[in-house]
């Protein structure tokens, strides 16, 4: 029984890191500019397709194509900002919701048009296989993804706390007026937050593609989880999203094991509701 519990916790923890990585971009964009990107899961999907096609067309393993795809996704994030988001920065919240929502439908449509609705998967990658740790089985792709997520978080936190640009980003997130007075160009910071936000979800997509299939609607389920993670951790809080990701992963797997898998997702949602009712700003929100 103990072994099983340990195995369950390990699995929950591993998927939790991935959830955290999917969510970090969402929370950053929100923190900096108060916009919820409803299309976040769709960027995950796009990056998974990139990873798949790099593998099929050029025979590049996802772990090798990761840097290139991260850069491409960074560019896509910046372009998205200038084309779609900039015009609605000062619009009412409803318009903002609808624009990013429109983006979601748009990207799904493009994916369906280009790649049809087939389920695709990279059969074998460098990360395939599993490891036996004292009776606990850990999938190597999951492990690679988890390590990638932790590294990615480390880099983001270092960037925010120790670089000039990072501190400027934080300053904008803290108080736009004050940042403007300090001579920070908030427009560029917004663009940067989109670049970084989409690049991180791009990394998540590539790592995910080593053990998950891709199809045009794959973003849906992950996006919903990312919302819960972000809201639970507190909108805008990078550290909060990390903790919340792990909590969500654990709650999902443990409740699925101990209670009933049919309801596992309900427990995640219920946890979210419980937390926001008690602490509407989330765990680490201000």
């Amino acid at each position, binding site marked *: 029984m103990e072994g*099983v519990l340990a*195995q*369950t916790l390990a*699995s*929950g923890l591993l*998927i939790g890191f991935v959830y955290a990585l999917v969510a970090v971009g969402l929370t950053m964009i929100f923190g900096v500019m108060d916009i919820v990107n409803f299309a976040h899961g769709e960027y995950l999907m796009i990056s998974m397709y990139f990873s798949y096609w790099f593998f099929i067309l050029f025979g590049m393993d996802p772990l090798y194509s990761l840097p290139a795809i991260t850069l491409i996704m960074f560019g896509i994030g910046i372009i998205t900002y200038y084309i779609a988001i900039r015009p609605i920065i000062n619009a009412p919240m409803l318009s903002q919701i609808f624009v990013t929502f429109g983006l979601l439908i748009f990207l799904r449509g493009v994916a*369906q048009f280009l790649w*049809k*609705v*087939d*389920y*695709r*998967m990279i*059969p*074998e990658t460098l990360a395939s296989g*599993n490891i*036996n740790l004292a009776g606990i*089985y*850990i*999938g190597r*792709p*999951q492990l690679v993804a988890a390590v990638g997520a932790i590294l990615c978080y480390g880099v983001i936190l270092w960037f925010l706390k120790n670089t000039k640009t990072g501190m400027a980003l934080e300053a904008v997130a803290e108080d736009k007026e004050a940042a403007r007075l300090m001579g920070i160009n908030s427009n560029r910071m917004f663009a940067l937050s989109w670049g970084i936000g989409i690049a991180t979800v791009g990394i998540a997509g590539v790592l995910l593609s080593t*053990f*998950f*299939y891709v*199809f045009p*609607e794959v973003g*849906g*389920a*992950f996006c919903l*989880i990312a919302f819960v993670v972000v809201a639970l951790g507190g909108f805008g809080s990078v550290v909060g999203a990390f903790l919340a990701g792990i909590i969500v992963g654990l709650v*999902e*797997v*443990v*409740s*699925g*094991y101990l209670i*009933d*898998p*049919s309801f*596992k*997702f309900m427990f995640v949602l219920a946890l979210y509701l419980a937390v926001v009712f008690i602490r509407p700003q989330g765990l680490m929100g201000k």
Partner: protein
Amino acid sequence: MKKIFRMFCLSLLVLSFASFAYAQEEIKIGVIYPLTGPLASTGQVLLEGVKLAAEIVNGNYNLNMPLAKGEGLPKLKGAKIKIIPGDHQGKPEVGMAEAERLITQEKVVAILGCYNSSVTATASQATERYGIPFVNESSTSPTLTDRGFKWFFRTTPHDGLFSENFFMFLRDLSKKKKVGANTIALFAENTLFGSDSVKYQTKYAEKYGFKLVGTVLYPAKSTQLTSEVQKLKGMNPKVVMQTAYIADAILSMKTYRELNFAPEAILANDAGFIDPEFVKSLGKDANYILSREVWAKDLAKKKPMIKIVADMFEKRTGKHMDGTSSRAFTAMIVLADAINRAGSTEPAKIQEALLKTNIKADQLVMPWDGVKFDPKTHQNMLGKGIIVQVQNGEYVTVWPFNLATKQIVWPFPKWEGR
């Protein structure tokens, strides 16, 4: 700007009120499948199966099957079949509206479809109201034929019959190989398909004297299945009977490997496990899965006609023929045969002819004993499933033993040794 907006709205309104009906001499048959939405890849394959059957009926082919030789339907002066496709997106009310559109606007004489049991349920309510024959090829929810509809016919065996096949297979196997596959766990997604299957598997497990050690149901849109597989592992069954669509099928296989779960056999319930994407996506991880099937390409060794049809299908679509497309194909042949024997496009005559359908086993590309409808439920009484196994990336028939082309690999090999 405003003007453009106004024009745009107006043109949409006009568009919405225009109706598009035109007359044609061919015999129109409505075919309703999920051509968009999450099930679109399956829908397209099904539609191609139907189209191929129509092509064989319309053209002149030297095959031992009804209407293959000679062009068109001889009793209707060589009239040709025309397929009018409709898309139900997997939504019951859209399926119903499409059935009504095909009947009233396109004037189809019969309808074929709809794959998803829930859509077949509503679409067949529309055909029942209009008195138009409905031939269902692959919706396996048993309740559909329990409704006693007058115009509804089903060629495929339903989940109840298929579930019984599993246990017949296990019984035969234990006689032949002396394997003691006596403990069973059920693993299924919790929508209609999964929960219906579980119900029948539970029933037959008792009847055939197998011990059920547990049932795990999970939500179909899961992002991971680790806790589910953990539960299965804890039950320690010899056989897992699994019911899943393609996404969950792939995910569960990955999770089995991740958590090193290898029971003596994974006995899968068709659907996701026989989708062409299954082997393509999983590569060698798909090997040794057992699945119930309605069809397999290697049946051609016993019935050469199957190879000819399967090759034609592959040439058309670039995809292998499979259990879904062959059933769609067969349903179209059955329907065309009935329309021909009716010698008329009158719905009542077609319905009468369908009831008298009697197609022999050797005229089918299916492993069935033939097609003959139960006079009360209109369920094909001669349908039968087979069990296939993935060996080297190919589906080979391993049961019934008289149709088997390869020896079964049992037990399921451990993951490490592969």
